[in-house]
């Protein structure tokens, strides 16, 4: 039994010096360890960027508050956004994909293990560089610090004229470096899925998680590259006398916007598609039914990826494009809502007729469904360009995208943590702490992000360090801030659960959830080589076939 092998292994290494263990982790090319490194790295930045958000919300609790200066506030919202997107969301999702994809397709590792490690360390370096700006951003002009031009770094605010010092350069270089890491991960996932599936696992038999990871990786290649190009152009402007975006010399501010959003929109699909992947694996298991409409889910995902490349200028409805351009982007944006909506219906169809178990992973997925529905609808509202002329650049948008990222992606991620933590560590997370985390977070989330739509409807723009009293925004901002503090407490409960369960959690065994994909066929945690012998599969749910030889899926597919 491989768990006995693990016991022997642990006993042998009990007396190992810690530097050896550290060296193992730093030089690892094992996809599982790299996955864990990504996740731990991202969780650290989640706490840091969450702390930045808490300071922002304290400043905004009352109008004309003086908790931080405008300069500090502007750095805070820039760093909060940049950190959350590039050093929390992307790494944590890459971490899960790295850990799970080879296990789910019956492979022993990723296609390019050393590229995998290199990609992680590039990402890690990027985060360090970005935060070094707090001390190193002064540059030669003594005018810098952390970046403060917003996470979109719009031109010409980032030109030398308006951003002296080196703060913009830290933004540029940190993201350039981690961008190469992202592209490396994308290449690796595509190669792994296309070339290393176990015998019998046709593309139409692999778990939806693998399909969605494949799609996400394709989008990374298409999305990150324009951003890298634009950042190089910005560096040329700032240091080599270029004028791409330098409006004082005839350059174009809108050119930067196009480049950035051609990255920016597919990027949010890079973030949400893995959330779909988590939910598509968890909901079937806790409804005790296969996913409803597997082929439609695959087609819808690929459609989302393609259409998402054509919607970018819905972030630019207010910049003065002509009516034909605005109409074009309105229809493409509405169109991308169709396959997305179909996926929601398929998840409901999965639960329909099932036998739903309300364990913690499923609770988070159910909340995801409600919240992603709402987030999608507020997206459709803004897709109607004239409505975006009022709602754009206001707190309505901030509420919408946090609804997607926190209410959708983060909830799905929490579900994924509770679901796969037993596989990674061999221990169950505490159900009671999990339920406490869930309800606290639901309370705080809705208090903050439901209410946050209203100041937007009442005219409150975003990225302001303070606001005028008497416009109806005061009490609403106070409620939003209190909800944020509650969410902070809930995240601390979650982190405590992660830590306590590592030592005190119940032993998990191979398959605590009675699930059906290949990762549950190996020990928890899996051995370094994943599978003693490469499996052969005959259906989408190989473990269902093993557990139900009288009624295997292979008979019906």
């Amino acid at each position: 039994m491989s768990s006995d092998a693990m016991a022997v292994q642990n006993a042998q290494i009990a007396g190992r010096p810690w530097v050896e263990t550290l060296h193992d982790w730093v030089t690892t090319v094992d996809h599982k360890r790299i996955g864990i490194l990504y996740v731990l790295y991202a969780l650290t930045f989640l706490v840091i960027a969450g702390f930045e958000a808490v300071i922002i919300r304290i400043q905004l609790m009352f109008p004309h508050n003086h908790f931080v200066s405008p300069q500090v506030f502007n750095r805070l919202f820039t760093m909060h956004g940049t950190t959350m997107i590039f050093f929390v969301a992307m790494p944590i999702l890459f971490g899960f994909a790295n850990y799970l994809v080879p296990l789910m397709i019956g492979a022993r590792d990723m296609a390019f293990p050393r590229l995998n490690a290199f990609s992680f360390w590039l990402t890690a370096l990027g985060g360090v560089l970005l935060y070094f700006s707090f001390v190193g951003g002064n540059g030669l002009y003594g005018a810098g610090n952390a970046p403060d031009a917003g996470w979109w770094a719009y031109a010409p605010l980032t030109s030398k004229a308006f951003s002296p010092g080196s703060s913009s350069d830290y933004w540029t270089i940190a993201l350039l470096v981690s961008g190469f890491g992202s592209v490396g991960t994308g290449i690796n996932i595509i190669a792994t899925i296309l070339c290393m599936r176990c015998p019998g696992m046709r593309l139409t038999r692999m778990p939806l998680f693998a399909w969605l990871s494949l799609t996400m990786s394709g989008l990374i290649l298409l999305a990150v590259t324009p951003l890298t190009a634009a950042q190089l152009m910005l560096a040329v402007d700032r240091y080599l006398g270029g004028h791409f975006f330098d409006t004082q010399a005839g350059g174009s501010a809108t050119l930067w916007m196009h480049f950035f959003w051609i990255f920016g929109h597919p990027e949010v699909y890079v973030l949400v598609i893995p959330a779909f992947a988590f939910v598509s694996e968890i909901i079937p298991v806790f409804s005790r039914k296969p996913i409803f409409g597997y082929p439609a889910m695959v087609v819808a995902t690929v459609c989302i990826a393609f259409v998402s490349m054509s919607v970018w200028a819905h972030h630019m409805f207010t910049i003065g494009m002509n009516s034909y351009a605005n109409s074009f982007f309105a229809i493409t944006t509405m169109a991308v809502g169709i396959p997305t909506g179909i996926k929601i219906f398929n998840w409901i169809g999965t639960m329909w007729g099932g036998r739903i178990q309300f364990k913690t992973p499923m609770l988070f997925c159910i909340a995801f469904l409600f919240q992603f529905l709402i987030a999608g609808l507020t997206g459709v509202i803004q897709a109607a360009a004239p409505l975006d002329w009022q709602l754009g650049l206001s707190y309505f948008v901030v509420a919408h995208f946090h609804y997607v990222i926190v209410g959708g992606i983060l909830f799905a991620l929490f579900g994924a943590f509770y679901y796969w933590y037993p596989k990674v560590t061999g221990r169950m997370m505490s159900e009671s702490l999990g339920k406490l985390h869930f309800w606290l977070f639901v309370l705080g989330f809705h208090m903050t992000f439901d209410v946050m739509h209203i100041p937007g409807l009442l005219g409150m723009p975003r990225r302001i360090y303070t606001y005028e009293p008497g416009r109806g925004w005061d009490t609403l901002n106070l409620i939003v801030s209190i909800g944020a503090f509650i969410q902070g407490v809930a995240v601390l409960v979650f982190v405590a659960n992660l830590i306590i369960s590592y030592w005190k959690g119940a032993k998990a065994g191979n398959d605590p959830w009675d699930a059906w994909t290949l990762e549950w066929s190996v020990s928890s945690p899996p051995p370094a080589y994943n599978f003693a012998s490469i499996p052969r599969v005959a259906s989408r749910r190989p473990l269902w076939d093993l557990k139900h030889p009288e009624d295997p899926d292979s008979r019906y597919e």
Partner: protein
Amino acid sequence: MQIPRIRDWIILSAIQMSTSLFWPTTAAAAESGGPSTVLTNIFAPETTPAKSIFDLSMFVLAITGVIFVVVGTLLVYSLVKFRGTAANDGREPAQVYGSVQIGLAWTVIPILIVVVLFIASARVIHAVQDAPKPESALEVTVIGHQFWWEYRYPALGIVTANELHIPVSDPAHPRPTFLKLLSADTDHSFWIPQLNGKTDLIPNHPNSMWMDPHRPGIFLGQCAQYCGTQHAKMLLRVSVDGPEDFDTWVRAQQQPAIQDQNVIAGKRIFETTACINCHAVSGTVANGRFGPDLTHLMSRVTIASGAAENTTENLRLWIQDPEAIKPGSLMPAMKVSDTDLDALVRYMESLR
């Protein structure tokens, strides 16, 4: 350890469904609220373009509201009806893989909804953006600066700052105001929710927007595109004036600065220090354009683009220590002596 499933879903769906109450409540509260909640409310339109956007928003909200109720109900129903109980524990339900008919239905219906939404949106896009400019239109050029607004009325020979005056437009005899939007430095955005959606001011990229307010009044807004340190205090104040009031205002703005002999000392200080590098006072040697035109400073209710009321004390503070009012603004502290400051402020207050 029995999981209290029913309680779970009750609480869950209660929280979730209560979100559906926010939207009609908001719209109702917004419209019935006191003056303060109507000031910058997108649901209280006062012009034709703002009204078109409002009408479209009601249509879109109705459709998305119906979708939310239908899908939300299906979701809640499935949670209740198909929850696992002790009775059927251990038996797997029917393993259904999908349904082509259902899949087609919930593909075709969303496509139809999207077509309807798009047609409704496209009509408003064209109506607002491609509206022809009538002969009677008033043309105003808005130039965005870090962190104030410059207004020029080319046909009337007026240059002013921070507080815009435009005429009422009677639907029978329309007199819309067409704004040309330019920027002197970075991106800004002109947003007064009751008068129209926002349009950005982007250097090298002139934009335009129009508004035809149906009643006189004061309308507030602020810059909506992050433009630097004091983006938050780049406030907007528009006074929509009846025809006589507007003509009176125009005539007053067209005059050069009032020459008041009592404030000669302050005028001399103004003209011999760095003030004139940035500011203009019509009829004097001061013709700087980096900062707001001060010719009729006292016709404005606020200073520093709305950051402070236009009072003697604030004028003193603004000249001596702008960081105390608007930290990060580009107005330098003038560091004049107290007597000079008194004289300067008296001069400023003569610029009616």
